[in-house]
């Protein structure tokens, strides 16, 4: 760090030096300054070209511009930005004074206007050559949104947002399909320039973005193709999500928004009622009649509830010519529809910017902090609520297990209500991220700017678990009460310095935009925890550890570092040919010592077809831009220290006798000292279009991503490593797909003031694992996708030639009605796999060799639609989402859909599919349980009314989320996580919310 500090000092000194020099360069002329806003939204427009005669400048992020050295007199000032009609105005300039002129531009085409944030800078949308999509605040999803990813679900073609439905639970994002098998597939998330740590155990809480109040977010930008993400090098392969938080654009104001919500469960697993269960026991397990019981308990009902929530957000903001500030406070409380699950967030955010030296130096400080408190439903509750016998009561006065009915059988499920009531699982996380950023625009050379950014990301958490000694499973396992407490701390720091130079080379009709920079990131995580078992009494719960029979403490420390240099050239020729070249060099502590640096280049070209005369004749009035891109990205979201062979210390039961003593051994583990990033090469062809004067606009993209050096654990040549298997860069896979998007201003307020904007997107992706081990000739496969039922059973496979995590099943023979057969077809007196499944390979026996890959959990098509309508003070919006071609393994049905579940130990409740199949024994690997799970869901529907009361603008609104879901899938949710295994997943809920927002 010593060297870092020195570099920092030099850079700061230089910035000050540059700041001092312009004061001497003033002449007998005046300046013109002003602000450019969007005529329809009044939002500031950055990147607008403002020109006076020969003098040209661009507006900054707040839409401000400044032109110096303008001779005294009256001038015509022009403001031009693609997607907007060019505006001009007259202004009188007096020597030595500053004249003001503001513009309000009228938009032309939706998709091509404005400015987009790209890595380390921003670009006019018209100049973008890669696949970049901006979702701004007015397009966000509505209703109860806990985490930022939910804002953009169904909004961007090629981006799949998969949430669990649990408040504060994990959310997965897939940008154009996954690129990895063993590493993370999540995109890099960058909040106000600070990359959040992913992978390597450094992301805290259940969802990395839980700390951020979505109300503070101004826009989310998705970088999808490699030309856009390559500037993030070894972290860009899964796409990049850039989140910009709100800053003030206008005069002091206070906004307050408040809403309340209620959620209910929409679907439940289809298990037998108490009546059906009784009949099943009588018919199929009469020997268990004595264990039947005579209660009527709906166990699901017993653990569910109506989830309530509230949210408040208060923001103070203001802006003058030289400074802007925004301070906000947020509070969110949301209870889940399953008892025991809840999240609460208290957050504060400060965004302060100030401009010095006529706006040449702008400094911005951004600090966000939050406290998140999570309550978690203990792991076994949902499963037990599905399987527990419905004829048993919840309570049993004579029970030694806290007064709850429990089976005296180690294999039986435990009473889910007892688990909820008696155990405690909660977590508190404090997290803050912040940055201080200075941007200096050099006075002596228009277009040159330098930016220095210092950032941090600090998180401190506490996870508590407590299980009293009389909880059934504590008794069963002889633990005698348990307290766990984990106190992780993670600290990341960041330094970034980059310079940008933009100029216009008149002679060549070219615009050049150069960026070069350096970043240094360091992370450290401390993971202390303790475990106490065999508590001497239970009264203290998780808050105190009484004397315990076993007390163990653990500590792990992890550190990582990422150092990068990057550069980018944007070149525009003749206003129609655009080129972007970028290069990043990443040095990462995760890479092996011999592979410490990786180089990630990208190139892209765009051609404004519509600027060509022939095209204007062909398609008059259309805006058309053709884009081509190529780039190389990496994925380094794998654990730290993979390149190091760690020495594993043996247990007391694995010692070696030397003489009369026993020696604890150490073993170096196999490691690949050359481990490196997984590398994805992407190709993209796209067409941006705006038709009918911009009323219809959108993009079409076709892409292909080839990932090499996938990390797998594979056999290695004997003697070349410290075990017979090693984790190394070996496999490859590919993704290819098509994306379409369309935005239409269908009605423009012409019909009595009704306006209607419709947006539609569609994405098709096909994933294929190309190979695992190049030496193995493609014959190998790796089983994955663990399921409930049996021991160590897997339902999915990684097999070259198929999508990753394809289901791996027996083809179940069907009867005339399409039902799976269950009869002794070969007449050998037993019903087994020989009778039920197709002999795929045609040999003598049906065995594990007859399992075949069948469909996959990833959808072929993802469709999204949003409509936004306004009439007078009313606004109405809704979002639809559809997945087509995705499949889900109904593990609840496969694990409980057979009469064996009645007979082994205590009788368990059955999944209702058994009434159709009649299975006596479990058929875990039957394709019957892999169900088509295409769906159409109305994600949200919002009605709002805006009005003014006592001079204050107000809006009241009501939203329904998950209005309906149409699907043929029989389980609780057709979007059963990324892996498509429905194993008592958290049920999806419907949420009604309503609220008000006021501006003072």
């Amino acid at each position, binding site marked *: 760090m010593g060297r870092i500090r020195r570099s920092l000092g030099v850079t700061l000194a230089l910035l000050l030096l540059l700041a001092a020099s312009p004061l001497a360069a003033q002449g007998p002329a005046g300046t013109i300054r002003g602000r450019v806003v969007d005529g329809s939204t009044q939002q500031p427009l950055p990147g607008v070209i403002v020109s006076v005669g020969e003098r040209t400048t661009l507006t900054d992020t707040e839409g401000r511009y400044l032109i110096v050295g303008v001779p005294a007199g009256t001038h015509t000032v022009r403001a031009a930005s693609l997607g907007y009609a060019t505006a001009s105005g007259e202004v009188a300039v007096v020597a030595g004074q500053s004249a003001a002129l503001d513009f309000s531009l009228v938009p032309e085409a939706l998709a091509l206007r404005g400015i987009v944030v790209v890595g380390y800078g921003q670009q006019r949308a018209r100049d973008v050559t890669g696949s970049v999509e901006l979702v701004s605040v007015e397009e966000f999803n509505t209703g109860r949104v806990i985490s930022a990813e939910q804002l953009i679900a169904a909004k961007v073609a090629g981006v799949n947002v998969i949430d669990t439905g649990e408040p504060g639970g994990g959310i997965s994002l897939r940008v154009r399909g996954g690129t990895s098998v063993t590493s993370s597939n999540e995109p890099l998330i960058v909040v106000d320039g600070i990359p959040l740590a992913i992978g390597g155990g450094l992301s805290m809480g259940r969802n990395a973005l839980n700390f951020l109040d979505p109300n503070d977010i101004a826009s989310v930008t998705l970088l999808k193709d490699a030309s856009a993400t390559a500037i993030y090098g070894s972290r860009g392969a899964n796409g990049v999500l850039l989140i910009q938080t709100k800053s003030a654009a206008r005069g002091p104001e206070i906004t307050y928004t408040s809403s309340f919500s209620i959620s209910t469960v929409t679907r439940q697993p289809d298990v037998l009622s108490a009546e059906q269960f009784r009949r099943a026991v009588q018919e199929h397990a009469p020997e268990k009649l004595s264990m039947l019981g005579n209660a009527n308990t709906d166990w699901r009902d017993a653990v569910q509830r109506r989830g309530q929530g509230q949210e408040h957000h208060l923001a103070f903001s203001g802006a003058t010519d030289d400074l802007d500030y925004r301070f906000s406070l947020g509070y969110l409380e949301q209870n889940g529809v399953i008892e025991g699950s809840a999240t609460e967030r208290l957050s504060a955010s400060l965004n302060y910017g100030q401009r010095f030296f006529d706006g040449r130096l702008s400094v911005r400080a951004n600090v966000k902090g939050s406290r998140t408190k999570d309550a978690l439903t203990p792991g076994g509750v949902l499963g037990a609520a599905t399987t527990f016998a419905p004829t048993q009561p919840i309570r049993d006065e004579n029970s030694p297990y806290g007064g709850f009915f429990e089976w005296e059988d180690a294999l039986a499920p435990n009473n889910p209500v007892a688990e909820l009531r008696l155990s405690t699982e909660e977590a508190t996380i404090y997290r803050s991220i912040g940055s201080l950023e200075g941007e200096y625009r*050099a006075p002596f050379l228009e277009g040159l700017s330098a930016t220095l950014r210092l950032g941090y990301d600090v998180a401190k958490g506490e996870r508590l678990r407590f299980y009293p000694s009389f909880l059934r499973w504590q008794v069963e396992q002889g633990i005698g009460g348990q307290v766990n407490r984990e106190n992780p701390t993670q600290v990341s720091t960041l330094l970034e310095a980059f*310079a940008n130079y933009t100029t216009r080379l008149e002679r060549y009709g070219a615009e050049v935009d150069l960026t070069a920079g350096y970043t240094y990131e360091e992370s450290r995580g401390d993971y202390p925890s303790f475990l106490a078992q065999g508590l001497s009494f239970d009264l203290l719960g998780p808050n105190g550890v009484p004397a315990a029979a076993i007390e163990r403490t653990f500590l792990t420390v992890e550190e990582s570092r990422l150092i990068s240099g990057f550069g980018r050239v944007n070149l525009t020729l003749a206003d129609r040919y655009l080129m972007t070249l970028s290069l990043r060099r990443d040095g990462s502590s995760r890479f092996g010592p011999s592979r410490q640096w990786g180089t990630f280049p990208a190139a892209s070209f765009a051609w404004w077809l519509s600027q060509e005369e022939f095209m204007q004749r062909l398609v008059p009035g259309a805006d058309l831009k053709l884009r081509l891109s190529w780039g190389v990205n990496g994925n380094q979201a794998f654990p730290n220290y993979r390149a190091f062979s760690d020495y594993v*210390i*043996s247990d007391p039961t*694995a010692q070696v006798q030397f*003489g009369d003593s026993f*020696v604890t051994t150490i*073993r170096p583990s196999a490691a690949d000292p050359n481990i490196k990033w997984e590398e994805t090469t992407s190709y993209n062809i796209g067409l941006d279009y705006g038709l009918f004067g911009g009323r219809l606009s959108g993009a079409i993209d076709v892409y292909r991503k080839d990932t090499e050096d996938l990390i797998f654990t594979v056999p290695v040549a004997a003697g070349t490593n410290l075990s017979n298997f090693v984790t190394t860069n070996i496999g490859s896979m590919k993704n290819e797909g098509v994306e379409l998007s369309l935005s239409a201003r269908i009605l423009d307020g012409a019909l009595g003031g009704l306006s209607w904007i419709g947006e539609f997107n569609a994405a098709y992706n096909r994933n294929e694992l190309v190979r695992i081990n190049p030496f193995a000739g493609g014959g190998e496969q790796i089983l994955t996708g663990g399921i409930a039922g049996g021991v160590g059973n897997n339902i999915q496979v990684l097999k070259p030639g198929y999508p990753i995590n394809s289901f791996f099943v027996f083809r179940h023979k069907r009867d005339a009605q399409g039902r799976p057969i269950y009869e002794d077809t070969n007449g050998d007196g037993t019903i087994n796999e020989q009778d039920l499944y197709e002999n795929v390979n045609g040999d003598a026996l049906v065995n594990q060799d007859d399992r075949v890959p069948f469909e996959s959990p990833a959808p072929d098509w993802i469709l999204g639609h949003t409509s936004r309508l306004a009439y007078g003070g009313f606004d109405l919006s809704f979002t639809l989402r559809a997945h087509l071609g995705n499949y889900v393994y109904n593990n609840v049905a496969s694990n409980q859909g057979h009469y064996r579940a009645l007979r082994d130990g205590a009788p368990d409740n059955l999944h209702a599919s058994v009434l159709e199949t009649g299975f006596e024994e479990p058929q875990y690997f039957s394709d019957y349980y892999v169900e088509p799970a295409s769906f159409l869901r109305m994600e949200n529907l919002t009605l709002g009314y805006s009005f003014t009361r006592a001079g204050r603008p107000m809006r009241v609104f009501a939203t329904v989320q998950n209005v309906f879901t149409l699907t043929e899938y029989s389980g609780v949710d057709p979007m059963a996580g990324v892996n498509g295994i429905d194993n008592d997943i958290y049920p999806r809920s419907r949420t009604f919310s309503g609220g008000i927002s006021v501006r003072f």
Partner: protein
Amino acid sequence: MNGTMHRALAAAAAALLLALPGCTETLVEPKSTVTGANVFRDPGSYRAFLAKLYAGLVLTGQQGPAGRPDIQGIDEGFSQYLRQYWQMQELPTDEAVIGWGDAGLPELNTQLWSSLNQFFAAMYGRIFFQVAMANEFLRETTDQKLDERRVSDALRQQIRQYRAEARFLRALSYWHGIDLFGNIPLVTEDFPIGATPPPQSTREEIFAFVVAELNEIMGELPPPGAGEYGRADQGAASMLLAKLYMNAGVYTGQERYAEALAALEPVLNGPYRLDDDYRHLFLADNHTSPEIIFTLPQDGLRTQTWGGMTFLIHAPVGGAMSAADYGIDFGWGGPRVKPEVVALYEGGPGGPDQRSHLFFTEGQSLEVASIPSFTDGLALPKYRNVTSAGTPGSHPTFPDTDFPMFRLADAYLMYAEAVLRGGGGSRAQALDYVNQVRERAYGDTSGNITDAELTLDFILDERARELIWEAHRRTDLIRYGRFTGGDYLWSWKGGVQAGQATDAFRDLYPIPASEMLANPNLRQNPGY
């Protein structure tokens, strides 16, 4: 543009250029895990690492009895070193048959195996795990490394011996490797980790390497019998050397019986003597036996595995046998003996040769009509988890009994065989050694043989009687040219109960199919 601008621009560029290389050190060493970077800061680590080299023959991972495995791709206990070595040395011979139906196991009874057999991959994996561990140990204990770590002279002295032991253990596994698989890669400490797949070496090359290694390290090891219990000394190294020379004709085409006799000298002249009680060699207190030269110690509480002696004691118990008699909780009902080996004992089970009294006959038939049926074939609870005083071991599942890998009776019979094969030595001495073994077996001199009876065939049979189920049989039969082919048939050889000739290529096991995929330099053994 004027000069000031140029200068400022230059300065800005210079600043960035300064910042860029300012900090470029990406390496971050792990702090809270033990790695090669810090493990040897603890001087005890050398001994702990050496212990792992021994552990590899007994344990399957860093957790006992299973967990944090050393090799992957197969069940841990299934793949344990000794269990695999025993299966491959005994099941295809006249000494044993196993009833379980696990994939790949039945074909070991009949010699009709394929290169896909999971157990071959396991044995191969274990052998090279040992080699890799020894190589890593040697790389971590070079003079240069010890200098860098400023290791004390006293510790260096010990490390000298540790290194010799590591090389002994590597030699032992290479011997197993060439004996079972033939031509395999010779990977030494000079071969870096993560390098490209190694080339295949010939049996001759590895033979020469191992012999040279053993000769080199001999002086660094403690004298015979002077090593700590469980560790290799000159006795163990001499036995290994003698084993190599005894089979040199098989491995290299050139017989070396004179060298075998020379190698045996330190053992024969060492402090070892025949245990008075043959049974004691296989009991929970066999660590007190004066006969054992090299052993694989197990302990019910501290050295737990699902392979090794746990397998050798549990698996042969079944049928009418009472598990408690053998100091265990229950039997696994797997291996028995084939009838041909029973016939080698004078008078059969219960005859004057008391070694035959170890057979369990109640409810067991002599013939093996059905391999899966445990009661077909006599049972042989040779190893037991009870002491000579009759007390059970410390744990009913994990025995205290140690595996006697090399013992004096074996050395005596090797001496006699080498003499008979023209290696020199004394024929009278040979007869005396054989009769010492016989006398213990019969309890008196009634079983002693005359000089005329001392033949090579007698030695082979005596080795079966004395060393049954001690993992020598396949090697012995191959040395005598009787393992494959039709000269000597036994039950289920070739897949039929009467036995039929098998192809000579089966003297070698195939290189495992998975290894053929992982290492493109390898050529499969002929016939597979």
